[in-house]
């Protein structure tokens, strides 16, 4: 599923190049230039892609790893190791 989401994201990068609408000034709904309408729909499609990415490609393993406490090492000492000086 992660590969499919990646594939869709790449396809969207290609679909962004809407050369077929370059000179077209036709209006959608009587006021919206078709070139602008296409890209407004594109923005909505990106939001839908994000929903699918969260549902099917969320990096649960990474989140589990990050939230698992290492034995014998507390957060303060880790912060100190990284010169994290904010107290």
């Amino acid at each position: 599923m992660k590969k499919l989401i990646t594939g869709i994201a790449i396809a969207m990068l290609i679909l962004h190049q809407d050369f077929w609408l370059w000179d077209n000034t036709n209006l959608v709904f009587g006021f919206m230039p078709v070139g602008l309408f296409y890209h407004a729909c594109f923005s909505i499609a990106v939001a839908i892609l994000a929903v699918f990415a969260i549902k099917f490609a969320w990096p649960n393993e990474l989140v589990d790893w990050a939230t698992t406490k290492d034995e014998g090492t507390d957060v303060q000492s880790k912060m100190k190791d990284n010169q994290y000086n904010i107290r």
Partner: protein
Amino acid sequence: MIVLVVILIYLALLLGLGLFSGKQSRGTSKDYFVASHSIGPFLLLMSVFGTTMTAFALVGSTGKAFERGIGVYGLMASISGLVHVICFFAIGIRLWSYGMKHGFVTQIQFFRSRFESNGIGYLLFPILVGLVIPYLLIGVIGAGKTILPVTAGAFPDLFPHAVWNGGIPPWLSGLGICLIVLAYVFAGGSRGAAWANTFQTIVFMIMGVVAFTLIVKALGGAEQASKVPITVNEKGLLVQNYGIVEQKDGSSKVERLATPLIRGKIRNADPSLAGYQPHLGRKVLEMDYKAKAPVTGELVDKSRELGVPPWMFLTYLFIPLSVGMFPHLFQHWLTARSANTFKLTLIAHPICILVVWVPCVLIGAWATGLIPPGVPPAAVLSKMMAELVDNQVLTGLLTAGVLAAIMSSLDSQFLCLGTMFTNDIVLHKVGQDRFTDKQTIWIARGFIMVIVALTYVLSLWAANKNVFDLAIWCFSGFAMLTPLVFAALYWKRVTTAGAYASIIVGTLAWLVFFILAGGSEYTVGPGIMPVTFCVLASTVALIAVSLATKPPSEETLNKFFGR
């Protein structure tokens, strides 16, 4: 004068909110710098969206659409939605995991650890500060250009001006904006900035929609508005068929003119262009026109490219990569409360872009049919508001919305630079026990004051720069650094030397193009954006030098990839 009063009330409210949030502070440096890691999903969305959409979004997008037409949305907005989401997903969540696991707060801490080098912090810090400053300038310059036209007539004796007589001059509005942002960042720290960001982002989104609705109404409805943009006639002349006509009762109305106004000429026009509205499409045309010189008021010959060259449209996709290296976003990613905090931003960010940009781009395209082509792009939104929305209170509120967009970007950037300077330069050098908690906060505040003062002085010097073009240079610089963070997160073989090479080569490439362009719009050949070459140069240097040098230690690889 009423407009000015409304703006002042808004600024006072904002200041009050910032000072109030300061009272909620726990008084520790941790609270001042990262709000004790308490930023949740909604505050994160508002903060990310508010800071990435500055004067560039409202004032710049309208101005650029006025110059090039509706192609500006695809050029910057829809591609930003996609690339930003990819970066939030591919970079943001992974960085959050390292922040959570290893306690990183700033991007310099992360890079120092990942590349086993203190020096990389000292190399990156001035470059990051140097790139953030143009972004801050966009805000201060944009604020000045927005306030001047809408306050015209308020103080004719005090502030004489050739075009907008009596308007608040940019040097004064810029100073006011800098001081207010400084005050609430000073008092409230990151909590104050997050609250102010949320408040301001809501204000500018609502006011953007309100401005659009009122302008549509003044134009006689959306369908009527679409007939207004400048049109090519059968002789290849650019004509305005509509105009803002003053009525007997003193109000103004958009009407079809009996004699169209000739505003310019298409170079090498062919008969097939008759009736074409260049700003509703993306066909590339060259326009010659006359504009008033700002000082003398004399008419001078000018030319402008209309539409969007396909190569420019393609290579603009590198520019939104900049989100991968913006210091304030990096800090948000490293310090978010949990991974789930990102989910709302991932989904809502492209929709927020749509809500703000589509109306602004339409207003910019429609404005071509009503105002002369010589009007500075940054003044287009204000001029449309002032001439079409005949209500001082609403004009004041709409201006407050623009200022909200501007200030919501400034605060996070100021604070982030203060955080980096204090932690990555001062305390890193002298040791964390050298100063008390209060002294640490004051070091950050001192550096923020220096940056604010520097930004203000530079804004006076660069007052006539196009805010959109400045933003593109700033974004190009951060985009040039993004291959570094991708490699740091996904490529085990990337080395310290490779990282240095990438930063140095990318920065040099950026500097060469910036100097060649003089900070203005610049393309190579058929419209290729310089960012393309900067990203390629930094990537090639990163890969080539990494492969030629010793791989990182097992300890570092285990720290970052040992899952």
